[in-house]
């Protein structure tokens, strides 16, 4: 069994703990910048832009937010930091949208394919998803189609044990498409409700590895009509602007249905995801907030945006 790390904090505690430090940055800086100013000068806007960039929003997205503030300044009075903060939040929510985007799992055997660069949190996310649906009484099968990384299959098998999901996997070096084929066949035969495919991490620049994913997608589509019903890109919230290029390439090659943002239990805000949503129109569906079975949540735009400032919805100044 997994040994417990020494005084490991729960994720909410860690979150709050992390925020007690970062709180000083965004909200407090914003307040500091705006307080006592008679007018919002270009210098102040520059500083606000820096705050946005510090949350990984990137130059372009930050600029659209600043443009919005500038335009609103002409229309109405934004003079205290609270109204500016609200203005920023408004604009960001416009971009992300406030619709809840659950996973589409209505098919008899719904197939979720999980992709992303190395170490992003794919396998862990799959473990958490399996746990979530098994707990709901659904039958879940996992396909260990990461046949490249050492011990990847064993890693997924442990998550299978934890959640009670079945795992189809062979030895390292096996053909990932063959694993997908066999897993799809097994899922149908066992009457599984959900099949989740774990794929090997890969950088979007590796053409042959992207081809491999396309093939896996074709194979599962041939076994189960309409599959995959979800093609999720896992993004590590600590990733910077490269995430946009990653998402672009994965979307172009694999036609994604949504994003999963992991490691939001750290101090990273995942602001780069906003630019991705804006450019590609893909919804963020899930967030990862820790390494435990329960540390997966549905994405909530309000919460996410206010976390850029506070981290938690109810934490007000």
């Amino acid at each position, binding site marked *: *069994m*997994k*040994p417990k*790390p*020494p*005084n*490991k*904090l729960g994720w909410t505690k*860690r979150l709050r*703990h*992390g925020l007690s*430090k*970062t709180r000083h940055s965004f909200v407090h800086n914003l307040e500091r910048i705006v307080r006592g100013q008679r007018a919002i000068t270009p210098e102040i806007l520059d500083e606000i832009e*820096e705050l946005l*960039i*510090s*949350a*990984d929003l*990137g*130059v372009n997205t930050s600029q659209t937010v600043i443009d919005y503030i500038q335009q609103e300044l002409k229309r109405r009075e934004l003079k205290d930091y609270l109204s500016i903060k609200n203005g920023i939040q408004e604009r960001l929510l416009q971009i992300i949208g406030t619709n809840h985007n659950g996973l589409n799992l209505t098919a008899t055997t719904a197939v979720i394919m999980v992709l992303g*660069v*190395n*170490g*992003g*949190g794919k396998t862990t996310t799959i*473990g958490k998803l399996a746990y979530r649906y098994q707990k709901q009484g659904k039958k879940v099968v996992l396909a260990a189609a990461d046949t*490249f*990384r*050492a*011990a*990847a299959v*064993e*890693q997924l*098998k*442990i*998550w299978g044990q934890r959640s009670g999901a079945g795992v189809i996997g062979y030895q*390292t070096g096996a053909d990932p498409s063959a694993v997908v084929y066999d897993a799809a066949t097994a899922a149908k035969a066992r009457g599984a409700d959900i099949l989740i495919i774990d794929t090997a991490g890969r*950088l*979007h*620049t*590796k*053409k*042959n590895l992207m081809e491999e994913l396309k093939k896996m997608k074709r194979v599962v589509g041939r076994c189960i009509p309409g599959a995959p019903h979800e093609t999720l890109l896992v993004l*590590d919230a*600590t*990733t*910077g*602007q*490269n*995430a946009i*290029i990653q998402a672009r390439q994965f979307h172009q090659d694999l036609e994604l249905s949504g994003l999963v943002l992991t*490691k939001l*239990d*750290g*101090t*990273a805000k995942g602001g*780069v995801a906003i630019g991705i949503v804006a450019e590609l129109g893909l919804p963020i569906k899930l967030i990862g907030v820790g*390494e435990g079975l329960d540390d997966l949540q549905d994405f909530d735009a309000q919460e996410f945006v206010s976390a850029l400032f506070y981290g938690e919805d109810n934490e007000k100044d």
Partner: protein
Amino acid sequence: MFDSLSEKLQATFKKLRGHGKLTEKNIQEGLREVKLALLSADVNYKVVKKFIEDVQQKAVGQEVLSSISPGQQVVKIVHRELVELMGESFRQPALAPAPPTVIMLMGLQGAGKTTAAAKLARRFKGERRNPLLVAADPYRPAAAQQLNLLAQQLNVACFIGAPGQTPLKTCRQALSQAKETAIEVVIIDTAGRLHIDEGLMAELTELKQALSPHYIWLVADALTGQEAVRVAQGFEQAVGIDGVILTKMDGDARGGAALSIRAVTGKPIKFVGLGEKLEALEPFHPDRIASRILGMGDVLSLVEKAETLYSEEQAAELEKKLRSNRFTLEDFSSQLKQLKKMGPLENLLELLPGMGNSKALKGLKPDDKQLLHTQAIIDSMTQAERLNHKIINGSRRRRIAVGSGTSVQDINKLLKQFTQMQKLVKRLPKSSAGLGRMRGLPFS
């Protein structure tokens, strides 16, 4: 997007040529471009701010030289400052007088510690230093197994503690085993952790106190954004960092995190990870990352790789052949053999600015297996065929296919690629075709 930073700067500064001195005012626009390039490369905004101030100070008051454009002049200053900030060139980590030398790796989850540990082991083994890998991650499922499998691939020793054992106990046992078994370098792979996780950070401090590692290296992902500063600070304050290994540099991330980490810790980046294979670890070169962050491509890396295999004359000869169309399949075959020594072809192409995504090169991105194929095909040709591919007609193609165990389609494909390559090379600008001349490229 910023591949053209130097071009942009040229344009911004064009009007300046021959206009006396660089002033705060006339370089402002250019420095804004530099700032945007750095931010888009994920350099932390505070680091960027400081950097721009420094560059401005250095640049203001300089005479605008007539030999180069003011744009080039500022690019040079920016580049030089960046290189300086990135710190000293690679130095081989010295081994402890009394073995074993203990190296502890730490970092966030998913940064690439386990792979980096194995790559280091491979490197030490190559230097005839007997390494021991220690699996000190009892938390992530199958982490120890992952390290153990990599160790087996490398045929190096790996120590795994009993299940449920603390990392400290595992490391202590590993160290005493190392002393008994003529191990020279012990590499400890710790669990990934958040820099704000006090419990797990304390675990590292405890390991540090008990084991007194000679080197504690932070493994950091080149894809990291603004967070890099907080992460580096967190590990530096809680544990202390001696050096950094920067992973996943084989992608197209600009790697601004390197600059952020360096700026806040002052510690050198030692190695970069350039792929998933265990040989993909290289010493860090400050000048190269500077070019990369600025979007100039990692031309120097390519040059150096090429230089270890080609002499200047060979390169010049090759270029001449390519340009005059005297480049034959025979030459192609010997190039392939060289290329194989240089590592995966795809990596090489990606090192060139603007080449990584070139459509024309798409068909020319064979994986290693394909290279073998191609080699077999060329080996099955007669000398005459190799010297003049135009004589290879249908019946010759069939014969070659049989001889090489491939199909006629494979032969057709290869010949097509070969002629495409000939065409492509002709279209390349003079300055970038010659491998021997690449060194000056960014500023020429």
